[in-house]
């Protein structure tokens, strides 16, 4: 039924190979068209998959899991590494997100990267990334997920360092790669721990995944192993995997790579560092959710508190940044933390193993926010790209008053800001509201903290909005040329993403108020059953009022030509502003820990040992062999007569010896 899904992965791979190997011989336009067309087909196939999948009949009210392909790639005794395609509600939902945003970014890049050196290479890397990301979400087991997880890391590295002649780009790409690799080490250890003790790499103990059908029950010995391992091993393995996910999803304190990753081209930031790759950690938690719920419910509080702290920290830093892409980057970190919290708070209630209502709510809300956030944050980043394209700078100080020059960008940016701020009838409202409701049910403290962070979100987004589109026009910066609206290839993706944001928002908000069925919860939910979203009127009202209040505050402070209040605040708390601007010195702390402590106290002695003792031993052996060779080398003179003399002497000597005996 879903045999065509293999093309969803093969087509981007193919276009990566074609563009990577032959791209440099192509015209820019041809290379871009190849990448975009193959992605267009992938998008169509993804939508077809979603249509067929969600159209298929449920069994006992649960969406079935389909495995169109699965083959054993590497058997290792009882363990085996499989490669395949797994279709279930979250992977199908991710297919939609990835293919939509990726297609929009492909189209947008025609305008944004126009005439750029290495245009073909750029499209090749985009294809590589899309392939890896699709492989990650379609993986049938943890190990396949890990392989593609590393592949997205590589493509992220390649794309951040796209402008490789620039030093900051190189440094940022290295930083991103090393930090995520460091976190992935924990992920790998977690996977191996899990595989060693449970003898399986599957996502759940429901059973091994077999091609052509859903799952087959585990054999008994595995089940017994799982039960013994359940006490301590599985939570440990899960927490180790979560550290990997936290690295990819930029959770505190492993978030340091994401703001720097903004050195890459802006469409790349939209695709990789806002919409898809950075939510891989969230996706991983969602994937392992049955295990978390069943074997490590206590450990989920780690996810909650890491998420809460990250959300707060990133929101605080975002309030003080002046680079528009950095503001968006910290806002991304904060929003991903919202998703993490949502997953963390979906503990089972006191009904035993059966998932109760608010357990479902958190999971559903996290996935829903992932979906809506991908759309409006991609839109915000692409809008920021248009602005950078027009102003040739990332600094907010050089902008201001752009609303006259860039109407389309202005409107789409405003709509996305309203969505992220959580205003009703925009998609962010529905999903964020569900998250806060779930948090309230988990613990009122978490709920109120998250409400406060949502207010901060509204504040810093509108600070950004007013800073770019209102305020004083920086005439000096416009002397070369006045800013102009971006070309059609760049504005169309903005409009498409905006329409999705509004459409989803209106549909779910109205549906929530009027109690329609068929919203996000009926597609994706923890148990796979139809989950109807009920608005909690109190939470919805509170968060809406708070969001509107903070937008008003931002308007009051930042809308005017001059900003006396902001200046006065800045003068009153210069240290606080400086600390927030410097991201509370997180990079410096890491720098200190790695360079001063780890490098100096651990790495330097080890390096000395390696260079002098290990290398010394082998160098000595090589020197000995060399000397021995040199000393017997003259024997092999190549002079035949000399050999003959030696031969004769030897023979004579032997004869004499034999005669004497």
């Amino acid at each position, binding site marked *: 039924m879903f045999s065509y899904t293999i093309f969803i992965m093969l087509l981007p791979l193919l276009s990566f190979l074609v563009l990577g190997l032959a791209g440099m011989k192509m015209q820019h336009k041809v290379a871009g068209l190849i990448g975009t067309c193959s992605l267009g087909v992938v998008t169509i196939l993804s939508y077809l998959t979603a249509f067929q999948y969600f159209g298929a009949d449920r069994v006992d009210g649960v969406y079935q899991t389909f495995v169109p392909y699965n083959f054993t790639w590497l058997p290792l005794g009882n363990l085996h590494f499989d490669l395949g395609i797994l279709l279930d509600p979250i992977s199908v939902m991710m297919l939609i997100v990835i293919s939509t945003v990726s297609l929009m970014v492909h189209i947008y890049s025609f305008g944004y990267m126009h005439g750029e050196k290495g245009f073909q290479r750029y499209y090749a890397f985009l294809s590589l990334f899309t392939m890896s990301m699709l492989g990650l979400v379609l993986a049938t087991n943890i190990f396949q997920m890990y392989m593609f997880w590393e592949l997205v890391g590589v493509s992220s590295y390649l794309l951040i360092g796209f402008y490789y002649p620039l030093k900051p780009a190189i440094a940022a790409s290295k930083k991103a790669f090393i930090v995520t690799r460091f976190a992935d080490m924990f992920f790998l250890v977690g996977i191996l721990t899990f595989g060693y003790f449970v003898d399986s790499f599957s996502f759940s103990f429901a059973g091994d995944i077999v091609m052509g059908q859903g799952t087959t029950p585990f054999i008994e010995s595995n089940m017994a192993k799982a039960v013994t391992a359940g006490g301590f091993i599985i939570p440990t393995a899960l927490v180790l995997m979560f550290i990997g996910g936290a690295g990819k999803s930029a959770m505190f304190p492993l978030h340091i790579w994401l703001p720097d990753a903004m050195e890459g081209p802006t469409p790349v930031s939209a695709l990789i560092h806002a919409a898809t790759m950075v939510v891989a950690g969230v996706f991983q938690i969602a994937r392992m959710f049955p295990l978390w719920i069943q074997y490590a419910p206590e450990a989920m509080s780690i996810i909650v508190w890491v998420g809460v702290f990250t959300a707060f920290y990133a929101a605080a830093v975002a309030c003080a940044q002046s680079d528009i892409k950095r503001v968006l980057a910290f806002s991304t970190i904060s929003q991903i933390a919202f998703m993490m919290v949502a997953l963390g708070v979906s503990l089972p209630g006191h009904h035993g193993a059966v998932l109760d209502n608010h357990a479902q709510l958190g999971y559903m809300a996290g996935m829903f926010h992932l979906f809506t956030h991908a759309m409006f944050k991609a839109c915000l980043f692409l809008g920021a790209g248009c602005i950078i394209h027009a102003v040739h700078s990332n600094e907010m100080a050089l902008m201001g008053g752009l609303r006259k020059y860039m109407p389309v960008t202005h409107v789409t940016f405003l709509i996305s800001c309203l969505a992220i701020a959580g205003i009703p009838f925009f998609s962010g409202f529905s999903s964020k509201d569900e998250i806060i409701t779930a948090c309230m049910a988990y613990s009122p403290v978490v709920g109120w903290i998250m409400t406060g962070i949502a207010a901060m979100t509204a504040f810093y987004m509108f600070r950004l909005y007013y800073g770019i589109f209102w305020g004083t026009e920086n005439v000096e910066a416009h002397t070369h040329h006045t800013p102009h609206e971006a070309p059609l290839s760049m504005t169309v993706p903005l409009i498409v993403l905006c329409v999705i944001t509004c459409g989803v928002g209106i549909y779910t908000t109205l549906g929530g108020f009027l109690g329609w069925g068929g919203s996000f919860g009926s597609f994706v939910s923890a148990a796979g059953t139809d989950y109807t979203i009920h608005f909690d009127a109190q939470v919805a009202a509170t968060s809406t009022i708070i969001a509107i209040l903070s937008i008003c505050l931002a308007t009051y402070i930042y809308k005017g030509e001059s900003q006396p209040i902001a200046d006065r605040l800045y003068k009153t708390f210069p240290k606080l502003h400086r600390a927030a601007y410097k991201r509370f010195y997180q990079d410096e702390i890491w720098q200190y820990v790695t360079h001063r402590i780890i490098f100096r106290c651990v790495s330097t002695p080890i390096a000395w040992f390696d260079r002098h003792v290990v290398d010394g031993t082998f160098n000595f052996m090589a020197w000995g062999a060399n000397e021995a060779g040199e000393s017997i080398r003259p024997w*092999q*003179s*190549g*002079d*035949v*007569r000399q050999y*003959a*003399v030696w031969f*004769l002497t030897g023979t004579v000597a032997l004869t004499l010896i034999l005669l004497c005996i």
Partner: protein
Amino acid sequence: MIPIECYFALSALLFFIGVYGFVTRRNLIAMLISVELVLNAVDINFAAINRLLYPGAMEGMFMTLFVIGVAAAESAVAIAIIINVYRNFRSDSVDAIQNMKR
């Protein structure tokens, strides 16, 4: 009748002339001739011992013929090699081909 010691003396003389020539001559052809001398010295021994000590047997004669055959083949191969060496090095001196060891 010539006493057997004379044959031995002749063959020993021929053998050491051959060895001396092999060790001292630089010319490849001369070295080949020296090897032939060594082989012929051995042949004389075979024939003489067979004829004088074991007149009824024929094995020594066969061995002589066999060695002559092998020597013919060997010189054919050796001359082929020498011609190739000459073509490549433009020299028939054994010193010229010392770098063959590399």
